[in-house]
């Protein structure tokens, strides 16, 4: 039971890390970057390649963060910024396009096969009541909690985090108040890309590197946000851990074929009962 719980939380940690990436970008651009799951999977393949070459771990993280930041900034400048103010959902199309490109490049350069990502930690098992878990899974839970609380603190207590929330409330007023929204959007995109790539060595041992995982992570990360409340990092943390836990419990009780269906059912119910998510806020409409 404890083993299932921890294993589920570790899986949920993956979703939380994707969801935080979504949130950072959402706050400043009001766009959901569908490519976020692609960043994590691309990061996994880069990690595998660099492990093979014997690159030191610290350098791997640097390379991942730099690659992710550049890729996401390019995505923003080519696909998001030109359509941002148009209001016709074009970002939906262009960020799905970006996700598709990332998947296509992985298929071309690497392979269709599933690859295993070596853990950063000793590949042993820790005995817990009801089974065992890996140190990598424990690390993933800790990383998700730290990242979730850190991102939450950033939006509440730092100058730049408050500015990001200001931009999300009212872009024009924020501009008038001296926030350089364009530079800010580039920065948050770069940060989300760096985050997506850099968590790959932690995520890899848990979910395996395979192209199709990109879409799955993008979808699940977003579902977590819909449940937790879009733009809220505490929601991302609690929603992520909750969804991961639900998946493992369902898989354990009814079989793996049901776990996606169960998450979908919860997603639908939350949207019906509390469309703004658990931590979301409502606003009155104006003419």
């Amino acid at each position, binding site marked *: 039971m404890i083993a299932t719980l921890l294993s589920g939380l570790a899986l949920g940690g993956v979703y939380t890390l994707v969801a935080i990436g979504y949130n950072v970008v959402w706050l400043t651009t009001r766009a959901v970057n569908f490519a976020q799951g692609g960043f994590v999977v691309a990061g996994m393949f880069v990690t595998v390649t660099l492990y093979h070459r014997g690159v030191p771990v610290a350098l791997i993280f640097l390379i991942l963060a730099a690659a992710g930041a550049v890729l996401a900034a390019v995505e923003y400048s080519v*696909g998001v910024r030109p359509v941002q103010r148009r209001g016709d959902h074009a970002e939906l199309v262009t960020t799905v396009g970006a996700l598709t490109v990332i998947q296509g490049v992985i298929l071309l350069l690497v392979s269709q096969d599933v690859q295993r990502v070596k853990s950063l930690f000793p590949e042993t098992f820790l005995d817990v009541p009801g089974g065992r878990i890996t140190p990598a899974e424990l690390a993933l839970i800790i990383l998700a909690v730290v990242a979730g609380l850190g991102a939450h603190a950033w939006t509440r207590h730092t100058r730049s985090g408050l500015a990001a929330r200001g931009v999300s409330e009212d872009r024009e007023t924020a501009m008038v108040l001296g926030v350089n929204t364009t530079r800010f959007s580039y920065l948050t995109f770069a940060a989300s890309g760096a985050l997506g790539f850099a968590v790959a060595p932690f995520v890899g041992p848990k979910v395996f590197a395979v192209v199709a995982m990109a879409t799955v992570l993008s979808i699940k990360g977003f579902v977590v946000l819909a449940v937790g409340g879009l733009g809220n990092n505490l929601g991302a943390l609690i929603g992520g851990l909750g969804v991961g836990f639900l998946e493992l419990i369902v898989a354990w009780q009814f079989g793996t074929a049901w776990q996606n269906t169960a998450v979908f059912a919860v997603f639908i119910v939350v949207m019906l009962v509390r469309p703004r998510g658990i931590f979301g806020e409502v606003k009155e409409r104006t003419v």
Partner: protein
Amino acid sequence: MAIADSPGARRAGGLAAVWIVITALLAFSPELGLAPSTSRQLVLVALLSLVVSGLNLSFGYAGELSFAQPAMYAVGAYTTVIVAMRWVNDIALVLVVAAAAGLLLGLVTGIPGLRLGGWMLAIASLYLVLLVPDIVSVAKAWTGGHQGIGGIPLPQLFGVELDNNGYVALVVVVTSAWFACFRNLVKSRAGKTLSVLRQSPVLASSLGISVFSTKLKAYAISGLPATMAGALFAYLDGFVAPDTFGVELAIVVLAASILGGARSVYGVFVGAALLQLGPMQSNTFGDYAFVAYGVFLIIAGVALQRGISGLAADLAGKVRARFGQAVVRPATHTAAPADAGRITGKQLTVSGISKRFGGVTALDDVSFSVQPGEVVALIGPNGSGKTTLLNIVSGYYRADRGTVHVGTTETTGLPPHKIARAGVARTFQTPSIPAMSVRDVVESARTEVTRVSIVEAMLRLPRHRRVAATDSGKVASVLSTVGLGDLANADAQTLPLGTRRMLELARSLAAEPGVLLLDEVASGLDDDELDELSRVIRAVRDGGGSVLLVEHNFALVRALADRVVVLSQGRVVVVEAPDVVAQHPEVLEHYLGEPATAASRAGTGGK
């Protein structure tokens, strides 16, 4: 009325004839010597066209991107698997069951997805595609699981087994029939309703259009062609496997839709044919497919907003302009008779309305009424609560206390579209004019006045024709009332501000409103336009309408209003005739900002 002889009817008749000839030619193409490999491509293009048309309806026309099409396609295919293999092998029955299943799935996923729209619907529908293999494997006994299932019998129609030629003919006929329905739907008033909705949900609700239920209907219907295509697809090879219905198909469908033009009917064939006969054919392309689709989606999302059909329309417009058949676009409107006809006004009663925003009291116990055949002006300095009150009356805000009645109907707390249906029409401070012709802008207000069901519009049933004729008469009459009769075909968004205000007024009148709310309708108008406006408002009042005029221009208020309600800091200062109000000491002090001795200037000054 000589409707049958009108050029529009003749064009429609010609289109129908061409449609039938093309359908017949394609349906009998195998008999006419088309090679089996080519007729297979014809079937594949037709099936992909059906799927893409569903996306065009929900994304292009209703403005909500959904990736659900592959899931709908799967529902159709597995309907064939289950119904034909286990129950009755009749393709007509299979199509009906598949369509019903598609509608049901559309409703179940659309209700939560559309509540928030945008990203939520996109993700919910993409998730649905992800679930296909899981559900197929859970129901392995029925579906054959991941490995797929073969042995689907040849199709039968009413007991007659169809050979390959018969199957091709059936696919062509079903595709043709759906596209005729699809075309009729989007070219009817429903298409204009969707266009207004997509461009401004606020405007749509002020016209009585329920944003949610209209989008839900469009979304649910958008699943029909994909499920029918899936049902037909299962018979093509007699084999169905879940990997046909993956995320990759969703990307292909989106690419085809955007390539042909998401807001087009015939563009669907172009987009579907290009993708089916191009990338989906070659194996060498396969390796690069994802990169190519992805790059295309980014480029298309940024630059190719209207697809190939949009480029074609632009080209046709240029050709017409060059060869002298340009659309005439007069720069301004002409004066016209000031007769608004009989209007059945309703009494608007506002009693005890209070509204607070946080610690600010915007409205405090406001009461007044507007009688039929009366113009009441609502004046007050900026921040006095005029617009807040208007937004409460039309349902965009909820009052904390108090009630609003339209006639005998209480409208307090109703959503905007229900208040509009109760007879309240309004204009906006900044005119809200969607990108369409002047005639269509006015016609969009008729959606909830005379209702026509989607089926009636798709099949062009008698009621659709009757209502279309009534609408076009009413539209012509209100356009002539406001003096825009000559501009009916002009592009509404290119009109100057004053003309746009008159157009908004015409749109409000077309709704045959019980109560007309005009929000600073005179601001930005020149003297001629002001005269025109006064003339129309008087005509509405004389016809029996109830008019509530929110206005800063006191000269206009004095000339038009029967009574004036003066608001200051959220409270009613006085309700009196304009001449009395002009002399009222508190009004002079609070509102006109002048000592009582300057009373005489109030009548001629601006504010």
